[in-house]
């Protein structure tokens, strides 16, 4: 990310020009979040303009609707160089809207999702994939809006395979302890010619289930959306609700959240290391990484009372603070266990050979698809919400964003290890500054009028986003959850196609370290 010249407001002149261009539609700034109303007739032009802005990336796209009003389409842009998020809001009062993925390819998955949930689709004849809707006649889902006119016709199904290639169906039940996921593998024997995924087996309608709940009640479900990696999505959701409610969490509670977030990152990176060893057949290395993982999970329990860090984040602050003494006593040993295993792995040629040049993802592809987290950083793209959009505890600590070149599995592994070391440093800094439980006000305190807010956090898998709208009783009318897994699965097939063979796929999947539950939510 290149440095930019800034004006007196701290924003670069390019952003001022961009906002001036959008300002003709009407906009409002709420701290680092800028909202602009964009008429649907000008939506394509606005998307072209924003997409061309330096450092801009489409972070999310979603819709909302009430029973009487038309659908509102929202695009969330990360203006990372400007340390701001931009939300465009467009009222869609027809069945079709401009095909935005032609301009911003990262929008395609959401175009499919919005069609299933709200019945509106991009203009044109582009086929849409199934996201949550299984191809079972008569099967239907609880929806956020109204049903589509017809089922989606996927771009990859039916799959036309020619020559000597054939399609190898794999999943959704794969092996013990691994999430259900269907691979459609197109192969000529061993090389992966093409790959597509079905994730609808795990769809649970989480966003639909959150409607009508109070933010605090919903938070319980949000942090279980992915299971592995509860803190990031929970913090993003809590921050969104706090913006809507006008709550300002106490500093020591924000730091308690940050300690939990870094512990979350540590144990997930250890788990990814163990999975990499398993996928490369290095059983002793796997055992070594799993010893580190178990020590980190026990440390989580000792520090916060839960191995997977559930129940730490609360609306308005943190429900529990860390046991600083336990962390100071046990963190060096637990991390040292991981570090020793990693150092040995980095000198094991049979391990490195399997990682090097496997699952290559280009930086251009990562940028085009809006990827985040270690997957994006492994291509050299320094996107990290802790640095680009720092929450209170990170602003003063200047987290070092680890990147690597190459975009292969080895690059992602190196990023994971560098981030683990940085997490230990950040935890020590947070403890030094003081951590503890605390809330800004009564949880779920109803606002006087309907309100909405955007929240974010850099989870172990990358930027997690949440957007929450509350009614005048403080109940959720629409909650959008966008864990990092939602973004990064869309880069997985690209990585698998890059001259890999069947046995490379588990290695690539381990290096992505995503959850199916997060994307299927």
């Amino acid at each position, binding site marked *: 990310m290149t440095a930019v010249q800034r004006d007196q407001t701290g924003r670069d002149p390019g952003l001022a020009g961009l906002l001036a261009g959008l300002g003709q539609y009407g906009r409002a700034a709420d701290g680092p979040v800028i909202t602009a109303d964009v008429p649907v007739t000008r939506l394509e032009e606005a998307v072209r303009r924003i997409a061309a802005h330096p450092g801009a990336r489409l972070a999310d796209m979603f819709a909302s609707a009430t029973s009487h009003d038309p659908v509102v389409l929202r695009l969330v842009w990360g203006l990372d160089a400007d340390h701001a998020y931009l939300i465009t809001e467009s009222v869609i009062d027809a069945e079709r809207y401009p095909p935005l993925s032609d301009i911003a390819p990262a929008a395609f998955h959401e175009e499919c999702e919005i069609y299933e949930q709200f019945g509106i689709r991009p203009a044109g004849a582009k086929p849409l994939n199934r996201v949550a809707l299984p191809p079972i006649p008569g099967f239907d889902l609880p929806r956020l809006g109204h049903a589509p006119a017809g089922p989606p016709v996927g771009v990859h199904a039916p799959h036309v395979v020619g020559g000597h290639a054939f399609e190898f169906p794999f999943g959704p039940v794969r092996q013990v302890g691994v999430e259900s996921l269907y691979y459609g593998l197109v192969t000529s024997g061993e090389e992966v010619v093409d790959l597509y995924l079905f994730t609808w087996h795990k769809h649970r309608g989480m966003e639909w289930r959150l409607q009508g709940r109070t933010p605090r009640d919903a938070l*319980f*479900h949000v942090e*279980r959306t992915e299971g592995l990696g509860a803190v990031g999505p929970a913090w993003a959701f809590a921050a969104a609700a706090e913006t809507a409610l006008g709550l300002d969490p106490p500093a020591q509670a924000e730091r308690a959240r940050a300690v939990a977030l870094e512990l979350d990152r540590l144990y997930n990176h250890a788990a990814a290391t163990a999975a990499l060893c398993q996928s490369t057949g*290095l059983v*002793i*290395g796997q*055992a*070594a990484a799993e*010893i580190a993982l178990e020590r980190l999970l*026990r440390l989580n*329990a*000792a520090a916060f*009372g*839960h*191995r997977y860090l*559930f*129940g730490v984040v609360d609306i308005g602050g943190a429900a529990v603070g860390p046991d600083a003494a336990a962390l100071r006593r046990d963190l060096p040993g637990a991390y040292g266990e991981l570090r020793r295993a990693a150092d*040995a792995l980095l*000198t*094991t040629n*049979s391990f490195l050979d399997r990682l090097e040049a496997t699952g290559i993802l280009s930086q251009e592809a990562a940028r085009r698809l809006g990827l985040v987290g270690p997957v994006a950083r492994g291509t050299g793209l320094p996107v990290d919400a802790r640095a680009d959009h720092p929450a209170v505890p990170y602003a003063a600590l200047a987290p070092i964003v680890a990147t690597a070149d190459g975009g292969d599995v080895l690059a992602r592994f190196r990023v994971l290890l560098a981030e683990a070391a940085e997490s230990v440093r950040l935890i020590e800094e947070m403890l030094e500054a003081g951590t503890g439980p605390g809330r800004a006000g009564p949880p779920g305190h109803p606002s006087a009028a309907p309100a909405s807010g955007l929240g974010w956090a850099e989870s172990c898998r990358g930027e997690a986003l949440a957007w929450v709208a509350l009614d005048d009783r403080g109940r959720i009318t629409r909650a959008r959850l966008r864990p990092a897994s939602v973004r990064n699965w869309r880069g997985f097939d690209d990585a698998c196609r890059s001259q890999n063979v069947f046995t490379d796929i588990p290695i690539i999947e381990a290096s992505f370290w995503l959850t199916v539950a997060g994307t299927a939510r």
Partner: protein
Amino acid sequence: MPLWFVRGLRRGVVTTRYPARPDDSAALLPTPPSFRAEALTVALADRLVAVCPSRALTRRREVLVYDVGACTACGRCRAEVPAAVTDSGQFELAATVRARLIKHVPLTHDGRHLETGEKDSP
């Protein structure tokens, strides 16, 4: 590979004494709830049923039916009515018969205990 062989020998066996004795970390694990029947009224039971996310709790007349097999030990019931729900401290819940995982907690009514079923919770 010799590196890993030497590392394995040097690190030695890493395991626990379980099941001969519980591991030290067992005390840190969340465990399913235990219900104090004498403190549970029908109204309180309905509150517990409402907050249970996995539908492990249902009420049949004046009995709280608790399916231990469906419980995820999330702690919501304990947080909802701390006076009547505590952590059981037990995590060895396996049973050879499914029905043994279904517990019946008789509810009180106006402070009077109703003899409507067994009082067994983990």
